[in-house]
């Protein structure tokens, strides 16, 4: 289960809506060993695409070094789907490489008419499993 504050849910949605129609991506990190998301870091989508996202490689190196220095880990890795539902695509599953992270997807597709669709998954060894989300 992912337990996350309303503040971070709103921040992810604000980022996704700001970048729409391109996919938005980022992380929420937290102290190692706690599983609690405490710091939101929006990342640049180097692909700048409505159908693909990729963290900018240099920004990503800085992020990982920063996490090491602060003894933090990636708790949530999120991205938006801008015309499909908030479910991991085959590509999302193929490239997922953080088995300890919660992969959060949000959708900003038009049919939702501004409603939120916020879902969380574990992606391990090529299998995505949805998990409950508790918003605090």
């Amino acid at each position, binding site marked *: 289960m992912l337990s996350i504050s309303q503040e971070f849910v709103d921040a992810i949605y604000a980022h996704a809506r700001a970048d729409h129609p391109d*996919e938005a*991506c980022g992380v929420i990190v937290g102290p190692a060993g706690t599983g609690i998301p405490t710091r939101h870091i929006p*990342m640049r989508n180097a*692909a700048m*695409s*409505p*159908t*693909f*996202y*990729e*963290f900018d*490689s*240099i920004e*990503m*190196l800085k992020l*990982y070094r920063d996490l090491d220095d602060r003894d933090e880990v990636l708790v949530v*890795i999120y*991205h938006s*789907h*801008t*015309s*499909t539902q908030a479910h*991991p*695509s085959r*590509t*999302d599953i193929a*490239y*997922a*490489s*953080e*088995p*300890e992270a919660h992969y959060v997807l949000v959708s900003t597709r038009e049919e939702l008419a501004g409603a939120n669709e916020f879902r969380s998954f574990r992606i391990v060894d090529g299998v995505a499993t949805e998990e409950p989300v508790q918003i605090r």
Partner: protein
Amino acid sequence: MAVSTPEIDIRIPTILRTYTGGEKSVQASGSTLAEVVADLDRRFPGMGERLLEEGKLRRFINVYLNDEDVRFIGSLDALISSGDNLTILPAVAGGS
């Protein structure tokens, strides 16, 4: 005079630590990135396959020499000096 090949520290991402017995950081030597990867694969069989595809760096594996993405400094031809460090990070990427 013997020419010494630099041995450098390599930071291994979580997902590849199955190959290194759980080690976060390992050493390998070579004068170019290609040689380092070949040495890494000798020491930790299977690593080469995870980093290379048809003799090139895999598209969704980022390799950094010190603070630079190796794609901008010659990829597998990047020159290695003693004291350098290498960081391997799988790209965080996907698509709808």
